[in-house]
């Protein structure tokens, strides 16, 4: 019995040990990281960067927080594309798999139920506050959306009505709401000021808040949908062949 264990452990150790090639690779990687670290260390830190430019233009941006000003005004185009990347992740996940939800979650403990029931409304509140606060302090759509997403995850694991209570079409609308509104506002600005995302100065704050609210909702739904891991149901079940509708593209 003991010898068997010994042999097993030896075998495991042998698997853990690195062979020559892996050691060489490890050495090279360490060298690379050291070199990169050295370079980043010796780069002189004297030039001020874009911080000054941001501060000098801050008053024209319509918001008091410089992070929000950069994210949604100065580099709003980047953020627009980033929001699209998030949506793309959901589309990609939905194209691959069907969500295991709604499936009966077996015996959720009452303590968990109670905690989640308490927490989720609070999280909604915090998310709303963060989005609102984004205009003058740290916060904004991504932070608020992340908290909404966490609330969605809690609801999903506790078998409380959440994503699955939302009809598929409504869920799609919710997911697309943020990106679509963002593009809409961008085009609105194009028609009124001649620049994509060039907000008129007096309404900039409100437009940014509008975008942030819509994006926070979409990001929250996006993150929960990603946790659910697939499309909630079959949108267009095949009428002539109902048995086939369960077999989507991800058969092993």
């Amino acid at each position, binding site marked *: 019995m003991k010898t068997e264990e010994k042999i097993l452990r030896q075998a495991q150790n042998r698997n853990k040990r690195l062979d020559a090639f892996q050691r060489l690779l490890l050495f090279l990687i360490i060298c690379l990281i050291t070199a990169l670290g050295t370079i980043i260390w010796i780069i002189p830190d004297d*030039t001020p960067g874009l911080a000054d430019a941001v501060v000098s233009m801050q008053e024209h941006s319509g918001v008091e927080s410089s992070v929000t000003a950069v994210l949604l005004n*100065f580099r709003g185009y980047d953020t627009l594309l980033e929001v699209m990347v998030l949506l793309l992740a959901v589309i990609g996940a939905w*194209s691959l798999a069907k969500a295991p939800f709604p499936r009966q979650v077996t015996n959720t403990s009452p303590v968990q139920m109670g905690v989640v029931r308490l927490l989720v409304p609070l999280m909604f509140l915090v998310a709303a506050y963060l989005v609102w606060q984004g205009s003058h302090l740290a916060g904004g759509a991504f932070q608020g959306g992340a908290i909404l997403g966490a609330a969605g995850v809690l609801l999903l694991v506790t078998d409380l009505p959440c994503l699955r209570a939302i009809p598929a079409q409504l869920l799609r609308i919710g997911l697309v709401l943020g990106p*679509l509104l963002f*593009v809409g506002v961008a085009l609105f600005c194009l028609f009124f000021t*001649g620049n994509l995302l060039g907000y008129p100065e007096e309404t900039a704050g409100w437009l940014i808040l509008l975008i942030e609210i819509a994006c926070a909702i979409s990001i929250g739904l996006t993150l929960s949908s990603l946790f659910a891991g697939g499309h909630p149901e079959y949108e267009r079940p095949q009428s002539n062949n109902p048995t086939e509708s369960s077999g989507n593209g*991800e*058969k092993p």
Partner: protein
Amino acid sequence: MTSLQLTSPSWMIIPVILPLIAGLLSFLLNRGIFAIALTAALANLLAVSILTCQLLSYGPMRCHMGGWQPPLGITLRTDGPALLMLLMTAVTGLAITLYARGYFSYRILDPKRASQHQHQQRYFWPLWLLLLAGLNGLFLSSDIFNLYVTLELIAIAAASLAALSGKPASQLASFRYLLVNLLGSITFLLGVVFLYKSCRVLDLDLLHNVPMNKPGISAALALMSVGLLLKTALVPLHFWLPPAHANALAPVSIILSALVVKGSFYLLFRLWFEVFAQLITTPALNVMGTLGAVAILWGAIQAMRQHRLKLMIAYSTVSQLGYLFIAFPLARIDGSTQVWSIVIFMAMAHACAKSAMFMVAGTVFLHLGHDRINDLTGIRANLPITVLAYGIAGVSLMGLPPSGGFIAKWLLLSSALASSQWWWALVVIIGSLLAMTYVFRVMSRFFVIPEGYSSAKSTPPSPLLEWPALVLAMISLFLGLAASWPLYILSTGNPALAQVFSGGLP
């Protein structure tokens, strides 16, 4: 009024914004998706044509997003190379849209797995449209961080598309594709971090004017180059390409092979020869050229050894990408727009020819249910247009006159000989001969008619499956005859480009 509108640089955002909106709508709506996609593809082509007119009349343009000037805001710009890549994407994109329609309709008619095909079609359109927006954004952007965002958009859309076929092989390949792409993106992002820490600006034009003597900039360039090479699949880093491209659905293979790899290559070329031209040394260029030469030979030999048509075409992509990198060592000697013309011609001709070939492979696969090269006999009788498209596309891949591939190889040969680097010329000739071997190997099977073969046993496929391939193949063929036209666009309003080449490269 019209001239006022034509001079507005805001036209530039249409190729990005329009596919974005179309992608969102096609995800949201349940019907009319093809109409949306077709409208977007047509409008994209129209917008790019308007941009071309703009470039020819008014020279390169800049568009500041939100009205914020460069160090703070993001700038989009048009110039000759960017516009030609946009044109290539728009034309190929329109053909892909039409072909995909035919492809999915044909498959949905098959009662066995109709719902699976419907599911694939449902998700193909939003992914493809968002990918198109990402590509257009990449070609237009002039901001290094924004370029990273577009790369990310392309990477995620492309990996999702590659997984769409649902076969285990394709899911494995696309998962690897996703990981490689993310590794490339993160390496690129790390390079951007180094660059920003050293230079404190993100705009490409401002970066070009920064003194290039800091160590951080070299490290940044190295990191970004490795990331982009990984995405472009230059030979030691090509391992992910053939399985990912060959196992995807036919329209997806076209997108990946014709357009996606060109995006990262274009960016790499731009960084090396415009922004960081002062940093580039001859050994670095020779390394690129050598890897390109290995890619040409290795890819062609692998292509000859394949038994499946799609895998053969995928390896041919590895081989053809090598030609793009052979242009690197020639660029230094030449010091003019000629190197751009080589690269752009090669990219355009390859995009059209390779799209046509993958379309042919897809149609043949639909028709026969397999794509084993040895069993492709008799196709000529059933799919004459498709076989014609294959032949013409093959002419361009081999580089026979008057195709676009011929012009590109001719330019490559002449500048190799002019700069007395004959060994690159030798590689080009051997590569073309090998290409001939693998193209003809399939061609000869097409023309064998086995005994007792009746051509009437199957229905002809829809014209949407056959004609886009033929039209693209014809474009790649006649690109060589109309060669002066792209060259004219390339050189129009490009004193900056010429200046960079004469000033930046000693």
